């Protein structure tokens, strides 16, 4: 990492950065395990452990609201207070690092009174009725109110909304009357995502979570990633839900309603039905969607494979231009599947737009293929087709509304629907998802490929690209290099290089003949012989920022040829449209489900997807990155910049 980056400090307010405690590495030798007692249970914990974490190991639940596993400590809601012997005041369990022996009590009179009062105070300002709230039954405030036996408003209750709603964004709706000022959204947006939409504004009684100059969400520098929604404890933040309009389309006999389903939702939708994270519901979901009335159920894996062919070809062309023609081309090439990431780049690093692959995201590719190729094949007027995209993502709602996304002559994708909203539609239709029979996707895009499904996890796009590019270039099987074609170095959430960023190299020792599908673009592969392909993977835009800054500073990442960027932590499986709650354990479970499906798929390399090959012989006859594919499968970007005013 560059020197500048190493020295740069977190911009999170210091009061919210984790309490600094130097934990020695040789704990036992130093006797740095500290003896404490919680509610009469003795235990030893490493120095610096928070009371909350220590209590958890004993199975003692301490309620929290501002605390979130993914975020730094805030200590502001005060619901987690505990009593410590010898201290006059209660202490916030989430923010108190244990550095000396303590005797802790978690449910004394003082503690119960303080917690109940804190709840009563929050409820007195929390406007809105639970039964008309999207988070009904999945609300941390509601759950605590029940747990603490709240049966009246001790300090009254706000009667009129104070701040109103902001529905301006395609992706995120804010209802600040439900906000309890836990500041998770601020920490998410500033620390995890480096976007900075929100901050606490004003002071005292007037304090509220606001946007710059109180601008509407649609006018702000917001990348629509929806990470704030996933971490909001109440219904103050939610996605802009199109399901009513989708039902209308389904109910309209003239409309041919198609749903395409991205890889990540199937790994998580079971959570909305009480299943453990990581229980795949792929085939039950197919049945359920048909039951709802969707005319066709397609797998976005198809267009994920299509993306690999287009984006991989684009990479090969860039490399060819750089290495053989010695042209000045933008490298490394950046992936463009994640609309949150794309908008991030458009705002913060517009000068790097040329690095962004021009290939559309799988969602948008599918949209334009359905409203052209599929419509032609099946003799349906594209004007009567409604395409819905089931996505783990809120940014997809914005993406399908971009003015660039009308290449089929129609709105390529009509609606982006999140996993949560799909689950809601199922419930509305009386579907108990886990009990559904299994059924396959519809043809002609029915082959579920492993190379497509892993798009749902960080590193998945890169893994698929490597599988395909390596085999197309060398003519050898990637399985000889990596067991089961599992490209482990690009998997997982951590990175060796710097936190959250992965790096890998792959040398083309030999080259084979150019396959027919690419023969019109390059004469041979000789120029790639001995070349080492360097790739990077980043997830979460704060990590993306690290990579870009490193590239600008001429660091190691600048040597990369191809970098996968995903807007959300963990990739799509951590998307802003996924079931709530989220944390690293949940995301890891979803990742396991995704990689298990990959492992069990027959086709695990994009270029072997028969539906994709058929599309190139029947429709995109001038091949990948050809004229027609450029019209329908590629796009251009907007220099948005950082100015709000």
């Amino acid at each position: 990492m560059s020197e500048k980056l190493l020295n740069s400090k977190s911009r999170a307010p210091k009061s919210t950065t984790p309490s600094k405690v130097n934990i020695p590495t040789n704990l036992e030798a130093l006797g740095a395990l500290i003896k404490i007692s919680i509610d009469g249970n003795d235990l030893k914990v490493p120095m610096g452990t928070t009371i909350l974490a220590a209590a958890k190991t004993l199975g003692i639940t301490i309620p929290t609201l501002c605390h979130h596993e993914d975020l730094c400590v805030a200590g502001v809601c005060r619901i987690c207070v505990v009593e410590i012997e010898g201290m006059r005041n209660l202490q916030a369990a989430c923010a108190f690092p244990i550095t000396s022996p303590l005797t802790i009590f978690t449910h004394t009179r003082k503690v119960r009174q303080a917690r109940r009062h804190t709840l009563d105070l929050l409820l007195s300002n929390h406007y809105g009725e639970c039964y008309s709230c999207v988070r009904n039954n999945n609300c941390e405030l509601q759950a605590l109110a029940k747990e603490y036996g709240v049966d009246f408003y001790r300090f009254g209750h706000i009667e009129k909304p104070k701040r109103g709603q902001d529905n301006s964004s395609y992706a995120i709706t804010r209802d600040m009357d439900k906000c309890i000022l836990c500041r998770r959204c601020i920490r998410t947006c500033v620390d995890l995502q480096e976007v900075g939409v929100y901050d606490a504004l004003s002071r005292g009684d007037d304090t509220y979570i606001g946007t710059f100059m109180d601008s509407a969400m649609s006018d702000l520098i917001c990348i629509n990633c929806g990470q704030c929604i996933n971490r909001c404890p109440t219904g103050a933040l939610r996605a802009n839900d199109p399901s009513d309009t989708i039902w209308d389309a389904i109910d309209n006999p003239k409309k041919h309603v198609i749903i395409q389903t991205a890889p990540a939702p199937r790994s998580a939708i079971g959570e909305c039905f009480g299943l453990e994270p990581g229980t795949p519901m792929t085939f039950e979901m197919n049945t359920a969607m048909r039951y709802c009335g969707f005319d066709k159920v397609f797998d976005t894996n198809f267009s994920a494979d299509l993306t690999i062919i287009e984006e991989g070809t684009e990479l090969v062309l860039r490399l060819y231009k750089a290495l053989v023609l010695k042209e000045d081309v933008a490298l490394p090439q950046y992936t463009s599947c994640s609309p949150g990431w794309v908008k991030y780049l458009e705002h913060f690093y517009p000068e790097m737009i040329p690095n962004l692959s021009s290939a559309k995201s799988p969602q948008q590719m599918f949209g334009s293929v359905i409203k052209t190729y599929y419509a032609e094949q099946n003799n349906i007027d594209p004007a009567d087709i409604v395409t819905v995209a089931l996505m783990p993502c809120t940014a997809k709602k914005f993406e399908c509304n971009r003015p660039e996304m009308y290449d089929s002559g129609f709105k390529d994708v009509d609606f982006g629907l999140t996993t949560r909203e799909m689950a809601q539609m199922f419930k509305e239709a009386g579907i108990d998802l886990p009990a559904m029979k299994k059924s396959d996707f519809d043809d002609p895009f029915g082959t579920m490929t492993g190379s497509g499904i892993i798009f749902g996890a960080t590193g998945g796009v890169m893994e698929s690209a490597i599988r395909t590019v390596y085999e197309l270039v060398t003519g050898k099987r990637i399985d000889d290099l990596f067991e089961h074609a599992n490209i482990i170095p690009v998997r997982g959430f951590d990175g060796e290089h710097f936190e959250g960023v992965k790096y890998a190299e792959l040398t083309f020792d030999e080259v084979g003949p150019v396959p027919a599908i690419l023969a019109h673009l390059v004469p041979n592969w000789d120029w790639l012989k001995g070349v080492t392909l360097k790739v990077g993977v980043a997830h979460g835009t704060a990590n993306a920022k690290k990579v870009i800054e490193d590239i600008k500073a001429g660091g190691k990442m600048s040597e990369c040829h191809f970098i996968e960027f995903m807007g959300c932590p963990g990739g799509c499986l951590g998307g802003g449209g996924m079931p709530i709650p989220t944390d690293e354990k949940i995301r890891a479970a979803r990742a396991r489900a995704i990689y298990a499906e990959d492992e069990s798929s027959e086709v695990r390399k994009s270029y072997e997807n028969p539906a994709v090959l058929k599309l190139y012989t029947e429709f995109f006859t001038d091949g990948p990155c050809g004229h027609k594919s450029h019209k329908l499968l590629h796009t251009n970007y907007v220099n948005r910049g950082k100015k709000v005013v």
Partner: protein
Amino acid sequence: MQVVEREILKKELTELINKYGSERSALMPILQFFQEKYRYLSGIIMQETAHALGIHPVEVEGVASFYSFFKTEGKQGKYIIRLCQTISCDLDGKSKVARQLENELGIKFGETTKDGMFTLEYTNCLGMCDQGPAMMINDRLFSKVTLDKVSKVLADCKKDFVKSDFPTVVPSDVKKSGPILEHGVKPFESLKTALDMKRSDIILALREAGLKGRGGAGFPTSIKWQLAAAAKADEKYVVCNADEGEPGTFKDRYLLYNHTDIMIDGMTIAAYVLGAKQGYIYLRGEYRYMKEYLKEAIAKRKESNLLGDNILGKEGFTFNLEMRMGAGAYVCGEETALIESMEGERGEPRNRPPFPVDTGFNQKPTAVNNVETFIDAALICAKGAKWFSNIGSDKSKGSKIFSISGSCKNPGIYELPYGITINELLKEIGGEDAKAVQVGGAGGQCVPRNEFDRVIGYEDASSGGSIIVFGPDVDMLKVAKNFMEFFVEESCGQCTPCRDGNPKLLEGIEMLEEGRCSYSYLEELLKLGETMQISSKCGLGQSSPNAFVSIVKNFQSEILGRVPEKV
């Protein structure tokens, strides 16, 4: 037009960053510059500042909207009239002055005249409690503002105070001095003595003297310095907390102006003990008229080798001092909030532990002390621990400077020994007929007449210096209301008990005023007060219900069952 404006701004920003650096800590001085120049912080100013410092515009707005001296909307007038609304000035007839100001200018508080000349605002404690009602117009202070003065002041404003009858410096009224104020130590002698001492001996002297923090919290200074000295770090800081915001306190204003050098001696000694090379005086925005004076004092010391490198010939001892300005936020008197503010953040107190002596300014060990504490420490070095510890009570050593205001014959600054009873104090100041005394400011305790034998000191009624006397005619409910309004406004808004609890207590007072508060609800509010005391994040929240609780408990017959006043 906008393009030109942006270009000018960018140029100014470049200059400001050359001056203050591009770290986030430069944010406050930059915003102060723009506020002064443009009289408000427009969206463009905040956005360009954010980009220049590499932070998000909303973060700048978060800071700008936190401090009451910054305005993010509505250009302010050429003259900003800030009328003190805190209790002492309130008792001295602030409301009438307010009405008269409104009448003269034809605007309400919070508004600006159409010609852009005047803005009317309330402010919290200006530190002129013994000479109220007080107001501030830009950098000028006006004390004992009577109704007939109002129009004269405004007329003088219009001619830019050329040939004005009003004095530029408002004198402080010292009514009684003692060993501290009349220390008789020759200039810089304490520093010289200290530099000849071993660091550990200085800490020992402070311990033997029994010096505890003079700001009110009463943490032993020797332990604070020792911890900061023992912390291992490449950089350390010494910070003077001159954010004297506690209603009813004005002694630091006097000390800063009249005992400047001995105070800086104290800071320099602290730096010597800690091994700190850099110090800051964090001066509250309401005392900005003292900024230039203090800057000059620092410059003079630098010329005389009392600051800078190899101070007084002590090889390798370097200490530099800078000013940092607050911008109108009471909570910044809390040391971690003060540090946040110095770092260019909203003044929101941090989680403790870790404490500033370990993780303070820029995450480095930092000793933050009150103005008076530094003076006492310096004097202890010069005169010895005994000189100090001979005065006071067992648990509260030394002589203490008090700011006394309210219903008494002789308000002003008093130096009195700790351990004095309230009765004795009242005799001293001519307030024998008082029905209650507020000890320790808004967050202190309201002591009723039957408890006047209580002792002023850390062990009983603790005060950082503020004593407000309430005479027999004072409506205690109004007092409670004034304090609660203060806290509703001055809470940083971070933690639930303080942010949402104080408005509930205020609501309760309004119910009492209207005579519609049941006894059981009042008891519930007292319990809420306890919750706020034990579960708020910082000292502000923890002390905010004190006045309410003690007034409700001690003056029940006075506040219950009221018939609402007819308007």
